[in-house]
């Protein structure tokens, strides 16, 4: 691709602008968490964090069970990721390769479920979970989150499978592979980038989910970070420094997860041929 000198400088600038927009509010969270209370209402805003205030992070870590919250959030997010991908692979394959009665219904049903707001479902879900003894457990929360995420990633994985030429599978069938083997050993590696994307989507959903985490979990030991953060917003006052500090601590692990998931994408690309 011929690149002109203009685009050579334009591209990096555009990328920087993009990163700036994406990261600025988080940067602002960092700054706010470290701006002394008296300077929050100054005439000229502090654009840089006052590094002397960095002790707030240590303090927050000590006095507030942030580590436990983050761990619970991690368990829920990881569980949602694993569960939803496992559940989604087979239907995605079926939607892509098979024509059978009910496939249209399944496909449409997967969409229909996305139209339901969590607020609407939480009341009946609470009583179903009560009957199944799934209340107040992270496992129950994982199940609830998975139900919401599976439709999206099923469709995304289906889209990726659509792009794999059938000759590849037919060749494997000639060799006598069973359908399951084909799916696991041949199809999956070829859609690695999409699987990584699916993993990221499920992880982020489980990580940030609030409504179910709030209602289905009643013990403080099992509280996730999303609910923990909300509990700071008090009746009478909000400790803005602590809230922003916890907010920053809450954002970083998910970003790091994406960094790792991305590595896998790159490895997946160089290992197998995706481009047809």
């Amino acid at each position, binding site marked *: 691709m011929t690149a002109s000198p203009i685009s050579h400088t334009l591209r990096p600038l555009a990328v920087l602008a993009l990163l700036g927009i994406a990261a600025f509010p988080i940067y602002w969270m960092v700054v706010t968490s470290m701006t002394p209370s008296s300077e929050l209402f100054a*005439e000229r805003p502090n654009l840089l964090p006052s590094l002397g205030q960095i002790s707030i992070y240590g303090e927050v870590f000590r006095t507030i069970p942030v580590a436990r919250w983050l761990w619970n959030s991690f368990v829920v997010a990881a*569980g949602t990721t694993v569960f939803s991908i496992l559940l989604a692979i087979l239907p995605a394959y079926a939607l892509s390769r098979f024509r059978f009665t009910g496939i249209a219904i399944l496909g449409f049903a997967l969409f229909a479920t996305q139209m339901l707001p969590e607020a609407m479902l939480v*009341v009946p879900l609470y009583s179903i979970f009560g009957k199944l003894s799934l209340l107040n457990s992270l*496992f129950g929360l994982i199940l609830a989150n998975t139900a919401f995420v599976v439709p999206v990633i099923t469709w995304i994985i289906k889209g990726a499978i659509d792009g794999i030429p059938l000759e590849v599978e037919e060749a494997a069938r000639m060799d006598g592979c069973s359908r399951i083997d084909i799916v696991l050993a041949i199809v999956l590696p070829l859609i690695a980038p999409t699987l990584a994307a699916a993993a990221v989507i499920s992880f982020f959903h489980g990580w940030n989910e609030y409504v179910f985490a*709030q209602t289905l979990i009643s013990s*403080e030991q099992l509280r996730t970070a999303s609910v923990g953060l*909300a509990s700071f*917003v*008090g009746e009478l006052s909000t400790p803005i420094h602590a809230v922003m500090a916890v907010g920053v601590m809450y954002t970083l692990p998910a970003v790091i997860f994406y960094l790792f998931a991305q590595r896998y994408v790159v490895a997946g690309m160089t290992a197998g041929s995706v481009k047809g």
Partner: protein
Amino acid sequence: MKKVIRGIMLATTTVLATAGYVSATFAKDKVTFAAAVFAEAGRGDRVRAWIDTFNKGQDDVEVEPVAIPFSSLANTVFTQMGGGGGPDLIRFDQTDFFAAIPSGRLLPLDNLINEANFKFLAPDRFMKVDGKRYGLLFDTTGYALLYNTKLVPTPPTDFETFLKDAKAQTKEGTFGYAYRATMAERAGFWQDVTNFVYGFKGRWSDGKGKLTLNSPDVVAGIAAYKAVYDAEIIPKGADAATYRRMFWEGKIAMNVDNGGVAAIFNQNAPDLPFKVAPSPFPDKAQGLIMTALVINANSKQPKAAAKFLNWAYAPANQSALLQAMGTNVGTDVPLTPEQTAARPWLAAYAKAMENALPQVVQGFEDKTPEIQQIVLEQVLQVLQGGASPQQAMDKAQALAERRVRR
């Protein structure tokens, strides 16, 4: 690929094993106590410590405090109660308390606690509906004028002087006053409007089953609210958390607010020179904040919960609770001179409570949220939409009557 699958299996098992962890059973009866205050900066830890003294002092019952975010306390707990579960003990604010009663979700307490043993404060009478007691007054406070003595040496005693003082103080980054005027803070917005309305002798209903949203006194209160808005003396759009912080950083001169806020100011800025005076309105009546400590009708441990209640209302423990909360508690607690000196605002607020009225619409308690929404939207029309107070309140009256008739 096989390695990856094995890795996934291992990960799944680990995750599920951790997630399925079940906590060990305790020898004591466990009772959960849900409240928003446990997560509050400063106060939360003190109240938790107070509960801890109960837990350490006996071997039969253990109370587990559960902090629930304030903004979603009602939704969460109501959903859980409706589903047959929920915490054993809950601290509800008045709107939610009155909403929960007709649905039978609160355990009547008449058999579990003997009233004669305790000297409840006057607002405790609201805990009884149709002769049955549904809750115990947990903490209560009134509204009064908090003012920064450096900016306003003498507090105003009537509304005109108040406006004048506030205008004089609005300069160079400082504001004369602050209140809520955004839907994002619906509950607090309602409290502030109610104070103005009560202060101009208005009442939301006549107590006999008729709404009086457009009575002349109520309209006068709304007009006063608008006068403050138009005078440009408030940081418009600021939420309460922000302007309370501005107050203790010395950027706001006056603020009508409740006793809990006075405690917050003192805690965050011990050197802040502020005092408390009666609100600068024609009528002494102001809003009353009261929270109720209730037992969930679904609770499987009512006797254990009752044990905690009896302990909580013993005079010594009430005194400790007052120190922890910073506001008045359910019973009358005599204060030592040192305690009074440490919290000089308590006396002023105790006086304000004498004339205080609940902030629910009397006779329409469980419809209050809908009436709130209607009234506040009309108030916003007055403040930002250019409607006249009379017009707006007539509309509110019509809409509200239609709603409550349903």
